[in-house]
Protein backbone atom coordinates (compact mmCIF):
# COMPACT_ATOMS: atom_id res chain seq x y z
CA UNK A 1 0.00 0.00 0.00
CA UNK A 2 2.64 2.54 -0.95
CA UNK A 3 1.70 5.88 -2.38
CA UNK A 4 3.01 6.09 -5.91
CA UNK A 5 4.08 9.51 -7.16
CA UNK A 6 0.81 9.62 -9.05
CA UNK A 7 -1.22 9.04 -5.93
CA UNK A 8 0.80 11.58 -3.96
CA UNK A 9 0.12 14.23 -6.61
CA UNK A 10 -3.62 13.58 -6.78
CA UNK A 11 -4.16 13.16 -3.02
CA UNK A 12 -5.67 16.47 -1.97
CA UNK A 13 -5.59 18.17 1.38
CA UNK A 14 -8.94 19.41 2.60
CA UNK A 15 -9.05 21.73 5.63
CA UNK A 16 -11.11 20.57 8.60
CA UNK A 17 -12.76 23.99 8.42
CA UNK A 18 -12.56 26.59 5.68
CA UNK A 19 -11.13 30.02 6.26
CA UNK A 20 -9.23 29.34 9.48
CA UNK A 21 -5.84 28.64 7.95
CA UNK A 22 -4.09 28.58 4.61
CA UNK A 23 -2.94 25.15 3.43
CA UNK A 24 0.76 24.76 2.74
CA UNK A 25 1.87 23.95 -0.80
CA UNK A 26 2.81 20.42 0.20
CA UNK A 27 2.11 18.16 3.17
CA UNK A 28 5.64 18.95 4.40
CA UNK A 29 4.91 22.66 4.70
CA UNK A 30 3.38 24.62 7.54
CA UNK A 31 -0.11 26.10 7.51
CA UNK A 32 -0.69 29.79 8.21
CA UNK A 33 -3.46 30.87 10.54
CA UNK A 34 -5.89 33.41 9.13
CA UNK A 35 -7.30 35.85 11.62
CA UNK A 36 -8.71 39.36 11.61
CA UNK A 37 -6.88 42.66 11.88
CA UNK A 38 -8.54 45.97 12.60
CA UNK A 39 -7.72 48.53 9.89
CA UNK A 40 -8.26 51.32 12.42
CA UNK A 41 -6.41 50.24 15.57
CA UNK A 42 -4.45 47.17 14.39
CA UNK A 43 -5.86 44.81 17.04
CA UNK A 44 -5.77 41.18 15.89
CA UNK A 45 -8.13 38.31 16.59
CA UNK A 46 -8.40 34.58 16.02
CA UNK A 47 -10.75 33.15 14.97
CA UNK A 48 -11.93 35.85 12.59
CA UNK A 49 -14.60 38.27 13.67
CA UNK A 50 -16.55 41.10 12.13
CA UNK A 51 -16.30 43.92 14.68
CA UNK A 52 -13.25 45.15 16.57
CA UNK A 53 -13.93 44.97 20.31
CA UNK A 54 -11.04 47.31 21.03
CA UNK A 55 -12.27 50.29 18.98
CA UNK A 56 -15.64 49.33 17.54
CA UNK A 57 -14.59 49.29 13.88
CA UNK A 58 -17.14 47.40 11.79
CA UNK A 59 -15.36 45.43 9.08
CA UNK A 60 -11.99 43.81 9.74
CA UNK A 61 -9.29 42.66 7.33
CA UNK A 62 -8.10 39.10 6.97
CA UNK A 63 -4.55 38.76 8.25
CA UNK A 64 -1.95 36.04 8.51
CA UNK A 65 -0.79 35.28 12.02
CA UNK A 66 2.69 34.35 13.20
CA UNK A 67 3.68 30.72 12.99
CA UNK A 68 5.53 30.66 16.30
CA UNK A 69 4.45 31.39 19.85
CA UNK A 70 4.82 30.55 23.51
CA UNK A 71 2.72 28.24 25.66
CA UNK A 72 0.71 30.44 28.03
CA UNK A 73 -0.82 27.42 29.71
CA UNK A 74 -1.68 23.81 28.96
CA UNK A 75 -3.27 20.64 30.27
CA UNK A 76 -3.13 16.99 29.33
CA UNK A 77 -6.50 15.57 28.31
CA UNK A 78 -6.69 12.02 29.66
CA UNK A 79 -10.30 11.33 28.69
CA UNK A 80 -11.44 11.72 25.07
CA UNK A 81 -14.37 14.17 25.02
CA UNK A 82 -17.52 13.32 23.02
CA UNK A 83 -17.06 14.00 19.31
CA UNK A 84 -13.28 14.33 19.42
CA UNK A 85 -11.32 12.91 16.49
CA UNK A 86 -8.21 12.93 18.66
CA UNK A 87 -7.84 10.14 21.20
CA UNK A 88 -6.60 10.86 24.71
CA UNK A 89 -4.04 11.36 26.04
CA UNK A 90 -3.04 14.55 24.27
CA UNK A 91 -1.88 18.02 25.27
CA UNK A 92 -4.14 21.06 24.95
CA UNK A 93 -2.33 24.40 25.01
CA UNK A 94 -3.15 28.07 24.93
CA UNK A 95 -0.46 29.56 22.69
CA UNK A 96 0.27 33.27 22.62
CA UNK A 97 1.20 34.50 19.16
CA UNK A 98 3.27 37.63 18.40
CA UNK A 99 0.14 39.59 17.42
CA UNK A 100 -1.04 39.32 21.07
CA UNK A 101 -3.55 36.72 20.02
CA UNK A 102 -4.03 33.67 22.24
CA UNK A 103 -5.25 30.54 20.52
CA UNK A 104 -6.30 27.19 21.79
CA UNK A 105 -4.63 24.23 20.11
CA UNK A 106 -3.42 20.67 20.48
CA UNK A 107 0.30 19.90 20.71
CA UNK A 108 1.98 17.46 18.34
CA UNK A 109 5.33 15.64 18.51
CA UNK A 110 5.67 16.27 22.22
CA UNK A 111 6.48 14.28 25.34
CA UNK A 112 3.40 14.85 27.47
CA UNK A 113 5.51 14.88 30.65
CA UNK A 114 7.73 17.64 29.25
CA UNK A 115 5.13 20.28 28.42
CA UNK A 116 5.77 23.51 30.29
CA UNK A 117 4.36 27.01 30.49
CA UNK A 118 6.68 29.24 28.45
CA UNK A 119 7.75 26.61 25.90
CA UNK A 120 8.37 27.87 22.38
CA UNK A 121 6.20 26.20 19.79
CA UNK A 122 5.55 26.45 16.06
CA UNK A 123 2.55 25.59 13.95
CA UNK A 124 2.44 22.30 12.11
CA UNK A 125 0.07 20.61 9.71
CA UNK A 126 -1.95 17.83 11.29
CA UNK A 127 -3.59 15.10 9.25
CA UNK A 128 -6.83 14.24 10.97
CA UNK A 129 -8.45 11.54 8.87
CA UNK A 130 -9.31 10.71 5.26
CA UNK A 131 -12.60 11.71 3.72
CA UNK A 132 -14.69 9.47 1.51
CA UNK A 133 -12.77 10.45 -1.63
CA UNK A 134 -9.45 9.53 -0.03
CA UNK A 135 -8.39 13.15 0.56
CA UNK A 136 -6.58 14.05 3.77
CA UNK A 137 -8.68 16.19 6.11
CA UNK A 138 -6.08 18.42 7.73
CA UNK A 139 -5.95 20.84 10.62
CA UNK A 140 -3.25 22.60 12.57
CA UNK A 141 -1.45 21.76 15.78
CA UNK A 142 1.61 23.28 17.44
CA UNK A 143 4.83 21.46 18.28
CA UNK A 144 7.88 22.31 20.37
CA UNK A 145 10.70 24.09 18.58
Amino acid sequence: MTDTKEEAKTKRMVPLREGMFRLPESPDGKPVLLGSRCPRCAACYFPKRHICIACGQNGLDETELGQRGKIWTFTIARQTPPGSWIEAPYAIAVVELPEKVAIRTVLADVDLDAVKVGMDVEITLAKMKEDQEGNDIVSYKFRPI
Partner: protein
Amino acid sequence: MGEDGIKVVVLGVGLHPFGRFPEKSVADLGRTAALEAVKDAGVDYKDIQAGYCGRVVASSGVGLSIFEELGSTGIPVTNVELACASSSRATELAVNGIKAGAHDMCMIVGVEKMPRGMLPVGFGAGGEVSFVGAMGLALLPGEYALQAQRHMALYGSRPEHFAQVSVKSHKNGALNPYAQYQVPLTLEEVMNSRMVADPITLYQCCPTSDGASAVILCSEGTARRYTTKPVYLVASMGATPIYTPGEVNLSEGPTAWLAQRVYEKAGMGPEDIDVAQCHDAFTPGEVLTVEKLGFCKEGEGGVFVWEGNTEITGRKPVNTDGGLLSRGHPMGATGGAMITEIVRQLRGEAGPRQVANAKVGMIHNAGIGGIQVSILST
Protein backbone atom coordinates in the same frame (compact mmCIF):
# COMPACT_ATOMS: atom_id res chain seq x y z
CA MET B 1 -23.33 53.32 51.48
CA GLY B 2 -26.22 50.91 51.40
CA GLU B 3 -28.88 50.04 48.95
CA ASP B 4 -31.73 52.36 48.05
CA GLY B 5 -35.39 51.57 47.50
CA ILE B 6 -37.22 48.40 48.44
CA LYS B 7 -35.16 45.91 50.44
CA VAL B 8 -35.52 42.28 49.45
CA VAL B 9 -35.81 39.41 51.92
CA VAL B 10 -35.29 35.70 51.31
CA LEU B 11 -38.37 34.39 53.07
CA GLY B 12 -38.21 30.69 52.24
CA VAL B 13 -35.87 28.09 50.80
CA GLY B 14 -36.28 24.47 49.79
CA LEU B 15 -34.57 21.64 47.95
CA HIS B 16 -35.19 18.32 46.32
CA PRO B 17 -32.14 16.17 47.17
CA PHE B 18 -29.47 16.10 44.45
CA GLY B 19 -28.57 12.76 42.90
CA ARG B 20 -30.09 10.32 40.40
CA PHE B 21 -33.87 10.10 40.21
CA PRO B 22 -34.70 8.51 36.86
CA GLU B 23 -38.30 7.87 37.86
CA LYS B 24 -38.97 11.53 38.66
CA SER B 25 -39.85 14.19 36.13
CA VAL B 26 -38.62 17.77 36.15
CA ALA B 27 -42.05 18.75 37.47
CA ASP B 28 -41.75 16.22 40.32
CA LEU B 29 -38.35 17.59 41.33
CA GLY B 30 -39.49 21.20 41.14
CA ARG B 31 -42.71 20.53 43.03
CA THR B 32 -40.85 18.98 45.94
CA ALA B 33 -38.45 21.90 46.29
CA ALA B 34 -41.22 24.46 45.86
CA LEU B 35 -43.40 22.84 48.52
CA GLU B 36 -40.50 22.86 50.95
CA ALA B 37 -39.87 26.56 50.30
CA VAL B 38 -43.55 27.46 50.70
CA LYS B 39 -43.64 25.62 54.02
CA ASP B 40 -40.33 27.18 55.08
CA ALA B 41 -41.66 30.65 54.32
CA GLY B 42 -44.93 30.01 56.12
CA VAL B 43 -46.95 31.26 53.14
CA ASP B 44 -49.59 29.84 50.83
CA TYR B 45 -48.85 29.25 47.16
CA LYS B 46 -51.55 31.77 46.26
CA ASP B 47 -49.41 34.50 47.89
CA ILE B 48 -46.78 34.05 45.15
CA GLN B 49 -47.16 36.84 42.60
CA ALA B 50 -44.51 35.83 40.06
CA GLY B 51 -42.47 32.80 39.18
CA TYR B 52 -39.03 32.31 37.68
CA CYS B 53 -37.54 29.00 36.57
CA GLY B 54 -33.81 28.53 36.21
CA ARG B 55 -32.95 25.60 33.98
CA VAL B 56 -30.61 24.69 31.08
CA VAL B 57 -31.77 21.61 29.21
CA ALA B 58 -35.50 21.52 29.77
CA SER B 59 -37.32 23.36 27.02
CA SER B 60 -40.15 25.86 26.62
CA GLY B 61 -42.95 25.60 29.12
CA VAL B 62 -40.94 23.97 31.87
CA GLY B 63 -41.46 26.84 34.32
CA LEU B 64 -45.20 26.73 33.92
CA SER B 65 -45.27 22.93 34.21
CA ILE B 66 -43.60 23.22 37.62
CA PHE B 67 -45.62 26.13 38.98
CA GLU B 68 -48.85 24.49 37.78
CA GLU B 69 -48.04 21.57 40.09
CA LEU B 70 -48.82 23.94 42.95
CA GLY B 71 -51.57 26.07 41.53
CA SER B 72 -53.04 27.86 38.54
CA THR B 73 -53.24 31.43 39.73
CA GLY B 74 -52.41 33.38 36.58
CA ILE B 75 -49.01 34.68 37.69
CA PRO B 76 -46.30 35.47 35.12
CA VAL B 77 -43.72 32.67 34.97
CA THR B 78 -40.40 33.24 33.20
CA ASN B 79 -37.80 30.65 32.17
CA VAL B 80 -34.22 31.83 32.69
CA GLU B 81 -31.05 30.23 31.31
CA LEU B 82 -27.44 31.00 32.18
CA ALA B 83 -26.01 27.50 32.12
CA CYS B 84 -24.74 26.56 35.59
CA ALA B 85 -25.77 29.93 37.01
CA SER B 86 -29.38 29.89 35.80
CA SER B 87 -31.18 30.10 39.13
CA SER B 88 -28.72 32.74 40.41
CA ARG B 89 -29.48 34.96 37.43
CA ALA B 90 -33.20 34.17 37.83
CA THR B 91 -32.92 35.37 41.43
CA GLU B 92 -31.37 38.68 40.36
CA LEU B 93 -34.22 39.21 37.90
CA ALA B 94 -36.70 38.45 40.68
CA VAL B 95 -34.97 40.94 42.99
CA ASN B 96 -35.18 43.57 40.27
CA GLY B 97 -38.85 42.77 39.79
CA ILE B 98 -39.55 43.41 43.46
CA LYS B 99 -37.49 46.61 43.52
CA ALA B 100 -39.28 47.88 40.43
CA GLY B 101 -42.64 47.18 41.99
CA ALA B 102 -43.58 44.71 39.26
CA HIS B 103 -44.45 42.16 41.92
CA ASP B 104 -43.86 41.45 45.58
CA MET B 105 -43.59 37.86 46.80
CA CYS B 106 -42.15 35.59 44.13
CA MET B 107 -40.53 32.18 43.82
CA ILE B 108 -37.48 31.06 41.87
CA VAL B 109 -37.37 27.35 41.14
CA GLY B 110 -34.16 25.88 39.77
CA VAL B 111 -34.26 22.43 38.22
CA GLU B 112 -32.32 19.99 36.07
CA LYS B 113 -32.31 16.36 34.95
CA MET B 114 -29.02 15.34 33.37
CA PRO B 115 -27.53 12.28 31.64
CA ARG B 116 -24.30 10.76 32.96
CA GLY B 117 -20.85 11.51 31.64
CA MET B 118 -19.03 14.41 30.04
CA LEU B 119 -21.28 17.11 28.69
CA PRO B 120 -21.21 17.06 24.87
CA VAL B 121 -20.27 20.68 24.21
CA GLY B 122 -18.37 20.16 20.96
CA PHE B 123 -21.38 20.04 18.66
CA GLY B 124 -23.28 22.53 16.56
CA ALA B 125 -27.00 23.17 16.45
CA GLY B 126 -27.69 20.38 13.98
CA GLY B 127 -25.74 17.81 16.00
CA GLU B 128 -22.71 17.99 13.73
CA VAL B 129 -19.34 18.05 15.44
CA SER B 130 -17.73 21.50 15.47
CA PHE B 131 -14.10 22.34 14.68
CA VAL B 132 -13.43 22.74 18.38
CA GLY B 133 -15.18 19.43 19.10
CA ALA B 134 -13.30 17.47 16.44
CA MET B 135 -9.99 18.88 17.68
CA GLY B 136 -10.66 17.61 21.20
CA LEU B 137 -10.77 21.14 22.60
CA ALA B 138 -14.34 20.98 23.94
CA LEU B 139 -13.32 19.52 27.27
CA LEU B 140 -15.03 21.16 30.24
CA PRO B 141 -12.57 20.13 32.93
CA GLY B 142 -9.98 21.43 30.47
CA GLU B 143 -10.85 25.07 31.09
CA TYR B 144 -10.31 24.75 34.82
CA ALA B 145 -7.23 22.58 34.29
CA LEU B 146 -5.73 25.26 32.03
CA GLN B 147 -6.25 27.82 34.78
CA ALA B 148 -4.77 25.49 37.41
CA GLN B 149 -1.63 24.82 35.35
CA ARG B 150 -1.05 28.56 34.90
CA HIS B 151 -1.59 29.09 38.62
CA MET B 152 0.95 26.37 39.44
CA ALA B 153 3.49 27.83 37.00
CA LEU B 154 3.11 31.41 38.25
CA TYR B 155 2.61 30.91 41.97
CA GLY B 156 4.01 27.47 42.80
CA SER B 157 0.69 26.04 43.93
CA ARG B 158 0.63 22.24 43.92
CA PRO B 159 -1.79 19.55 42.70
CA GLU B 160 -2.62 18.60 46.30
CA HIS B 161 -3.79 22.17 46.98
CA PHE B 162 -6.51 21.71 44.38
CA ALA B 163 -7.29 18.18 45.53
CA GLN B 164 -7.78 19.42 49.09
CA VAL B 165 -10.85 21.35 47.90
CA SER B 166 -12.50 18.02 47.14
CA VAL B 167 -11.46 16.53 50.47
CA LYS B 168 -13.10 19.42 52.32
CA SER B 169 -16.10 19.37 50.02
CA HIS B 170 -16.84 15.70 50.62
CA LYS B 171 -16.31 16.07 54.36
CA ASN B 172 -18.96 18.83 54.34
CA GLY B 173 -21.23 16.89 52.03
CA ALA B 174 -21.28 14.02 54.52
CA LEU B 175 -23.05 16.45 56.86
CA ASN B 176 -25.69 17.38 54.29
CA PRO B 177 -28.66 15.03 53.90
CA TYR B 178 -29.56 16.61 50.54
CA ALA B 179 -26.10 16.06 49.03
CA GLN B 180 -25.53 13.65 46.15
CA TYR B 181 -22.38 12.27 47.81
CA GLN B 182 -22.34 11.96 51.58
CA VAL B 183 -19.09 10.04 51.97
CA PRO B 184 -15.81 11.64 53.06
CA LEU B 185 -12.79 11.13 50.82
CA THR B 186 -9.12 11.14 51.77
CA LEU B 187 -6.54 13.18 49.91
CA GLU B 188 -5.04 9.94 48.58
CA GLU B 189 -8.41 8.77 47.25
CA VAL B 190 -8.95 12.12 45.51
CA MET B 191 -5.48 12.27 43.97
CA ASN B 192 -5.42 8.59 42.96
CA SER B 193 -8.76 8.71 41.18
CA ARG B 194 -8.53 8.65 37.39
CA MET B 195 -6.82 11.73 35.89
CA VAL B 196 -9.20 13.61 33.59
CA ALA B 197 -7.16 16.70 32.60
CA ASP B 198 -3.96 17.35 34.53
CA PRO B 199 -4.11 18.16 37.46
CA ILE B 200 -7.85 17.46 37.75
CA THR B 201 -8.70 13.90 38.74
CA LEU B 202 -12.15 12.35 38.60
CA TYR B 203 -12.99 13.17 42.22
CA GLN B 204 -12.09 16.79 41.53
CA CYS B 205 -14.94 17.02 39.02
CA CYS B 206 -18.52 17.68 40.00
CA PRO B 207 -21.02 14.99 38.99
CA THR B 208 -23.99 15.38 36.70
CA SER B 209 -27.18 15.31 38.74
CA ASP B 210 -30.95 15.53 39.00
CA GLY B 211 -32.36 17.95 41.54
CA ALA B 212 -34.23 21.15 42.29
CA SER B 213 -34.07 24.22 44.49
CA ALA B 214 -36.64 26.86 45.39
CA VAL B 215 -36.22 30.33 46.83
CA ILE B 216 -39.03 32.65 47.89
CA LEU B 217 -38.33 36.38 47.94
CA CYS B 218 -40.45 39.29 49.07
CA SER B 219 -40.16 42.92 50.09
CA GLU B 220 -39.03 43.80 53.59
CA GLY B 221 -42.47 45.18 54.36
CA THR B 222 -44.19 41.94 53.42
CA ALA B 223 -41.57 39.85 55.23
CA ARG B 224 -42.47 41.51 58.54
CA ARG B 225 -45.76 39.61 58.50
CA TYR B 226 -43.93 36.30 58.52
CA THR B 227 -40.62 36.68 60.34
CA THR B 228 -38.88 38.76 62.95
CA LYS B 229 -35.45 37.70 61.72
CA PRO B 230 -35.29 38.41 58.01
CA VAL B 231 -32.34 37.47 55.81
CA TYR B 232 -31.75 40.20 53.27
CA LEU B 233 -30.57 39.70 49.71
CA VAL B 234 -28.46 42.83 49.76
CA ALA B 235 -26.97 42.74 46.29
CA SER B 236 -26.91 40.43 43.27
CA MET B 237 -25.16 41.32 40.04
CA GLY B 238 -23.99 39.58 36.91
CA ALA B 239 -21.27 40.00 34.31
CA THR B 240 -19.66 38.61 31.17
CA PRO B 241 -15.97 38.68 30.16
CA ILE B 242 -14.32 42.07 29.65
CA TYR B 243 -11.97 42.32 26.69
CA THR B 244 -8.54 43.62 27.64
CA PRO B 245 -6.07 43.82 24.74
CA GLY B 246 -3.19 41.44 25.19
CA GLU B 247 -4.74 39.63 28.16
CA VAL B 248 -5.77 36.00 28.04
CA ASN B 249 -9.07 35.15 29.69
CA LEU B 250 -10.09 31.59 30.50
CA SER B 251 -12.79 32.37 33.03
CA GLU B 252 -16.56 32.54 32.62
CA GLY B 253 -16.46 36.17 33.68
CA PRO B 254 -14.58 38.98 35.49
CA THR B 255 -15.08 37.73 39.06
CA ALA B 256 -12.75 40.16 40.86
CA TRP B 257 -14.20 43.15 38.99
CA LEU B 258 -17.78 42.05 39.69
CA ALA B 259 -17.07 41.24 43.36
CA GLN B 260 -15.68 44.76 43.78
CA ARG B 261 -18.93 46.24 42.46
CA VAL B 262 -21.06 43.98 44.65
CA TYR B 263 -19.03 44.90 47.73
CA GLU B 264 -19.53 48.59 46.91
CA LYS B 265 -23.25 48.17 46.45
CA ALA B 266 -23.47 46.32 49.77
CA GLY B 267 -21.23 48.81 51.55
CA MET B 268 -18.97 45.93 52.62
CA GLY B 269 -15.61 44.31 52.00
CA PRO B 270 -14.13 40.80 52.04
CA GLU B 271 -13.46 41.13 55.76
CA ASP B 272 -17.22 41.26 56.38
CA ILE B 273 -17.95 37.89 54.79
CA ASP B 274 -18.57 35.10 57.33
CA VAL B 275 -19.49 32.28 54.95
CA ALA B 276 -19.39 31.82 51.20
CA GLN B 277 -20.35 29.68 48.22
CA CYS B 278 -17.95 29.44 45.27
CA HIS B 279 -18.47 27.74 41.94
CA ASP B 280 -16.45 24.57 42.39
CA ALA B 281 -17.53 22.64 39.29
CA PHE B 282 -13.87 21.54 39.36
CA THR B 283 -11.51 22.10 42.28
CA PRO B 284 -9.54 25.03 40.78
CA GLY B 285 -12.83 26.93 40.93
CA GLU B 286 -12.49 27.40 44.69
CA VAL B 287 -8.73 28.06 44.70
CA LEU B 288 -9.01 30.82 42.11
CA THR B 289 -12.26 32.32 43.36
CA VAL B 290 -11.17 32.89 46.98
CA GLU B 291 -8.46 35.15 45.52
CA LYS B 292 -10.87 37.03 43.29
CA LEU B 293 -13.37 37.57 46.11
CA GLY B 294 -10.53 39.11 48.14
CA PHE B 295 -10.42 36.41 50.82
CA CYS B 296 -6.68 36.10 50.25
CA LYS B 297 -4.04 37.66 48.00
CA GLU B 298 -3.66 36.79 44.34
CA GLY B 299 -1.64 33.63 43.96
CA GLU B 300 -2.22 32.47 47.54
CA GLY B 301 -5.46 30.58 46.97
CA GLY B 302 -3.79 27.16 46.93
CA VAL B 303 -2.08 27.63 50.27
CA PHE B 304 -5.19 29.34 51.67
CA VAL B 305 -7.24 26.21 50.99
CA TRP B 306 -4.45 23.82 51.94
CA GLU B 307 -4.09 25.42 55.38
CA GLY B 308 -7.78 24.90 56.13
CA ASN B 309 -9.03 28.47 55.87
CA THR B 310 -12.12 27.44 53.88
CA GLU B 311 -13.19 24.67 56.28
CA ILE B 312 -16.38 25.13 58.32
CA THR B 313 -14.17 26.05 61.28
CA GLY B 314 -11.78 28.14 59.18
CA ARG B 315 -11.45 31.88 58.67
CA LYS B 316 -13.54 31.90 55.48
CA PRO B 317 -15.78 28.82 55.28
CA VAL B 318 -16.60 28.00 51.66
CA ASN B 319 -19.22 25.53 50.41
CA THR B 320 -20.21 24.31 53.85
CA ASP B 321 -22.81 21.98 52.29
CA GLY B 322 -20.38 20.22 49.99
CA GLY B 323 -20.44 22.57 46.99
CA LEU B 324 -20.95 21.36 43.45
CA LEU B 325 -18.36 18.65 43.98
CA SER B 326 -20.23 16.80 46.71
CA ARG B 327 -23.68 18.38 46.93
CA GLY B 328 -24.02 17.73 43.19
CA HIS B 329 -24.70 19.93 40.19
CA PRO B 330 -28.09 19.84 38.51
CA MET B 331 -27.15 22.90 36.50
CA GLY B 332 -30.34 24.94 36.78
CA ALA B 333 -30.78 24.18 40.48
CA THR B 334 -27.31 25.03 41.76
CA GLY B 335 -27.78 28.79 42.15
CA GLY B 336 -30.84 28.28 44.34
CA ALA B 337 -29.01 25.62 46.37
CA MET B 338 -26.19 28.08 47.05
CA ILE B 339 -28.72 30.61 48.30
CA THR B 340 -30.45 27.91 50.39
CA GLU B 341 -27.27 26.99 52.25
CA ILE B 342 -26.27 30.62 52.86
CA VAL B 343 -29.75 31.39 54.21
CA ARG B 344 -29.64 28.38 56.53
CA GLN B 345 -26.23 29.51 57.77
CA LEU B 346 -27.41 33.07 58.41
CA ARG B 347 -30.50 31.80 60.23
CA GLY B 348 -28.39 29.48 62.40
CA GLU B 349 -30.20 26.45 60.95
CA ALA B 350 -27.22 24.65 59.39
CA GLY B 351 -26.91 22.07 62.17
CA PRO B 352 -23.57 20.21 62.09
CA ARG B 353 -22.46 22.48 59.22
CA GLN B 354 -23.12 25.67 61.17
CA VAL B 355 -20.52 28.41 61.01
CA ALA B 356 -20.41 30.26 64.32
CA ASN B 357 -21.94 33.77 64.23
CA ALA B 358 -22.59 33.81 60.51
CA LYS B 359 -24.22 37.14 59.65
CA VAL B 360 -23.05 37.89 56.12
CA GLY B 361 -22.77 35.45 53.23
CA MET B 362 -21.39 35.73 49.72
CA ILE B 363 -22.19 33.68 46.64
CA HIS B 364 -20.23 33.25 43.41
CA ASN B 365 -21.93 31.19 40.69
CA ALA B 366 -20.52 30.77 37.19
CA GLY B 367 -21.78 29.34 33.93
CA ILE B 368 -20.97 29.27 30.23
CA GLY B 369 -22.41 32.69 29.44
CA GLY B 370 -21.53 34.65 32.54
CA ILE B 371 -21.18 34.89 36.29
CA GLN B 372 -23.27 36.05 39.23
CA VAL B 373 -22.11 37.38 42.59
CA SER B 374 -24.46 38.06 45.51
CA ILE B 375 -24.30 39.15 49.14
CA LEU B 376 -26.86 38.18 51.80
CA SER B 377 -27.02 39.53 55.32
CA THR B 378 -29.07 39.39 58.50
